[in-house]
């Protein structure tokens, strides 16, 4: 017996998703709104769903050099089916330095920042003294993360004010810039926005699983159109 609350597909009759009739109640939703509803089991307010959707767009980088996109490049070049490509690229994105595990760690870091300012100051002093890693801050290769300004633009254009988590995130950003030259990165900002929108860590991580997919798909189809196995042919990084 399978116990389930997400939904039921009564083929030929009706499909129910978290208590709504898919073909009568959900078709007006955007793809992201529906995905969020199916994932969370509750509807996000459409302006907030649109904010998260635009954050998705803001990180769909179609550059074949990026680690997870390189998987897509290799698999397109080898003519592997797109479904296998997507599975592999998503799996490679479940990594610690970047990607989903980094996002998880960034959420934990944001959740650990105390709200009362005096307590926050003491927490930061102790954190720096103990040389603890603050996930969600810092970025290899370049100091600034161009997605921070894009995220603020998305919020501003939606008329959304920064919530308490995002204010804490930037409070820490300002302190770290002053003391160490380290800036808030996109994972930290998205974690804070998600907290302000009432998403748990696992809800954020699950909902954002496909956030790099536009990049994978673009790189895959680009390399698929090129000669077979031409992508970094013969390159070995050992």
């Amino acid at each position, binding site marked *: 017996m399978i116990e389930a609350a997400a939904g039921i597909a009564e083929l030929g009759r009706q499909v129910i998703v978290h208590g709504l009739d898919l073909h009568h109640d959900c078709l007006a939703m955007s793809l992201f709104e529906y995905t969020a509803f199916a994932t969370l089991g509750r509807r996000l307010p459409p302006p907030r769903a649109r904010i998260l959707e635009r954050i998705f767009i803001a990180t769909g980088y179609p550059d074949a050099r990026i680690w997870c996109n390189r998987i897509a490049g*290799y*698999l397109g070049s*080898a003519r592997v089916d797109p479904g296998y490509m997507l599975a592999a690229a998503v799996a*490679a994105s479940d990594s610690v330095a970047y*990607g989903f595990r980094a996002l998880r760690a960034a959420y934990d870091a944001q959740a650990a920042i105390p709200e009362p300012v005096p307590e926050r100051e003491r927490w930061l002093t102790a954190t720096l003294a103990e040389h603890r890693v603050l996930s969600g801050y810092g970025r290899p290769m370049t100091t600034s993360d161009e997605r921070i300004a894009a995220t603020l633009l998305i919020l501003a254009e939606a008329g959304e*004010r920064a919530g308490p988590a995002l204010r804490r995130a930037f409070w820490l950003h300002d302190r770290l810039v002053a003391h160490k030259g380290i800036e808030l990165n996109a994972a930290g900002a998205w974690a804070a926005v998600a907290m302000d929108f009432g998403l748990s860590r696992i809800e954020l991580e699950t909902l954002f699983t496909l956030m790099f997919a536009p990049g994978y798909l673009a790189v895959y189809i680009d390399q698929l159109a090129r000669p077979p196995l031409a992508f*970094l042919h013969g390159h070995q990084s*050992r």
Partner: protein
Amino acid sequence: MTDAKLWPLIAALADPALFDEGVEAARNACVAGASIAAAAITAAAWYDNPLTGLGALHPCMDLLAGLPASLAAWRDAFTPRAHGLVGDAVAPGFGFVTPAHATAIAAAAHRLFADASAGGAWRGRFFVQHRDAITEVAGSLNAAGLAALGFVDHAIDREAAERSFLCARISTAIAEAQGARARGLARFPFFEDAYHYTGARPPPRAFDLAALRTRVGLD
């Protein structure tokens, strides 16, 4: 469990001289700290490919199983034809290898098949004897072709063959992925590769971060 008579073939497939883009893709999957599950998924996907992977192994085995010991028949059977996801010209089991891989695979074929006393049927020896004439039309033997010759000559069925081939290739790739993960991102050339973007370039536009911070109430 792999049949003991296949061990020399499995060992040949694991030879570092045969490391290909499937191995490199698996390294890539783990270099940022993902589980070896990511390497396994990536390698399994890559070695499903129709050029040098399972998508070549099966048709190559099918062709080999039906071929007589006739050079003309082999040359005809292994003339490249449209094959796979986008219809590339492919002779299953041949082509898509670097010159270094071609040399290594030819040497492995000689090692595995040239000696009749080593067992197996006649196809591997026939290929070694007529390698130049066959590869002239088909391209160089690749890893799938090497494996297909070994599997067919040892009467390994399709299911056992694909299992042995994929497991051997994934196992090697995972080990390399672990090494890449241990060496870390600092040793992996993400943005150091030569990259030639050929599309249009709109002019860069800067954001006014200070103004955006004010607009959302951060300052």
